[in-house]
């Protein structure tokens, strides 16, 4: 049996983060997200989500709206999915942007391990970030294989 994933440890690494929301017609919207941070009790995930002005992502990111975050280490494919609802949306503070910078550096090192050159990895980072806090209600192991999808 695979070892239990340590979500806090995973979040602290150069992981790939994808956030999904949806509109009233259940049309989903995806964005990359950067600088993930988990609260000490593991109940809240704060992350800077790419949300271009006037985009569907920006519209969907309302307090109370459902949101999910997929967090994966690219070199090992170890991954988790956290599902919950948005509790807060704000412009990123300078401290938060520093967290983003550190995370992007870690992400670049991680993607090099799967053959992605640094310029391409950095090109994946978008300019329009919103700091989003998600209250986590469900956690799933998403590491590929027979155990994928089991609740954590």
């Amino acid at each position: 049996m695979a070892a239990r994933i340590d979500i806090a440890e995973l979040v602290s690494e150069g992981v790939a983060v994808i956030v999904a929301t949806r509109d009233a017609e259940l049309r989903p919207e995806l964005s990359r997200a950067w600088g993930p941070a988990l609260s000490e009790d593991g109940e809240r995930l704060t992350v800077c989500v790419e949300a271009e002005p006037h985009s569907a992502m920006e519209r969907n990111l309302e307090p109370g709206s459902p949101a999910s975050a997929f967090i994966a280490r690219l070199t090992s494919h170890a991954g988790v999915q956290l599902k919950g609802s948005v509790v807060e949306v704000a412009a990123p503070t300078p401290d938060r942007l520093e967290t983003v910078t550190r995370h992007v550096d870690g992400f670049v090192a991680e993607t090099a391990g799967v053959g992605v050159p640094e310029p391409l990895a950095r090109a994946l980072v978008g300019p329009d970030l919103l700091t989003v806090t998600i209250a986590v209600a469900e956690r799933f192991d998403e590491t590929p294989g027979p155990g994928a999808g089991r609740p954590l």
Partner: protein
Amino acid sequence: MTEVVDLESIRDCLRAGLPAPMATCSADGTPHISHISQVEYLDRERVATSRQPFNRTLPHLQSSPFSQALVVRPTTGEQFRLDLRYLHTATAGEEFEAMRANVEAIASQTEQDAALRLRGLDVHRVLRCTRVKRGLSEPKRPPTPDPLVLLEQLARRLERPTSHEEVTRELIDALEDLFGFRDAAVIAPGDIEARSGLIRTAASRRRVVVTANIARARSMAAAVTDGEDPDGALAVTGQAEARSAAAVPLVVGKDVIGVLHLESPKPSAFGGRTEGLLRIVGAHAAAALAARGAPARPLAPDGDPPIELVYYEADDTVLCDSAYIVKGAPGRILWSMLKAHAESGRTQFTNRELRLDESIGLPPGNDNLESRLLALRRRLADIDCGVTLERVGRGRLELGLERPAELTEVPTGVPQARR
């Protein structure tokens, strides 16, 4: 401002070797994210996504057909969102078989290939395709020649050779000259089983299969095998820097007469339109090879005596029908290949395996292997002894024997015949 783009213009982003995040919604409205290993272009309005055992999107698609996938252009980092509407799931047919061949090529590298097996092809209508943001600008390149012109040139070049071996050489040269594919090799039918899953799958499925990102395929294989390291399993020509690979079956009627194998140091070198191009190249090459009959070496006339090859361990001398061929390190190299051929019928060898062959015992580091092989090839060509050695790709050699051979080893201490 959202920029809408034509799906046709981003075909190179599909099956690009990077996992595509895909979002769906469960019946209760909770967004769900999965990673799709293959997004396949079907036509200008439809794509298909691979559904493997650990992919749980189908129940969501059945309750709400909308999904969104995020794909990346591997050369620039540009990203595109595909807004999709689920149509149906295919579990048979041409499109399903094509994707299954690719998925199985990767799955064959692991012991738990069932975990990677393709269960279905989810077909979606593309509602909208939009650019997320601009990544790096494309490097300026000379205008790409019309692929039809290149294919015509290839067809003309394959008309000239008069033998099976010449066609192989011309094909490899033309692939580099016309298409820039430097690492190409033709795998003989007898060698296919000993090769990687990519090559075996191409032959057994009779389909072009592509590994767009070897590093990712390896790490994914390690993930599903619970941490076992399959490093190296996907490399077949020994090019350590290879990042993508393709295998093209050479099919004539019911027979697979070989597999054209290509590697590139660039990720995603063989995806998109290139895959279709390779299909045509494979058809031309197969027809050209078949038109010259079988390779020369198996056509030994009945009744001819076998080639007598003798190896003297004392100084690594190799004799052919009592005539001296070579000695020293080149002698050990030749004998190693002759023995492998006698034991398994193999005809193709790589520089890498020769370097690792302990029976040859080349010194690590500066082993002068290339110059030794060049001398050996020239020597065999000069004496016309019925044994040939040809370069059939970068770092790849093909051993030829005009007729069956008998091998004799004379250990050290046994008196040598005069030569």
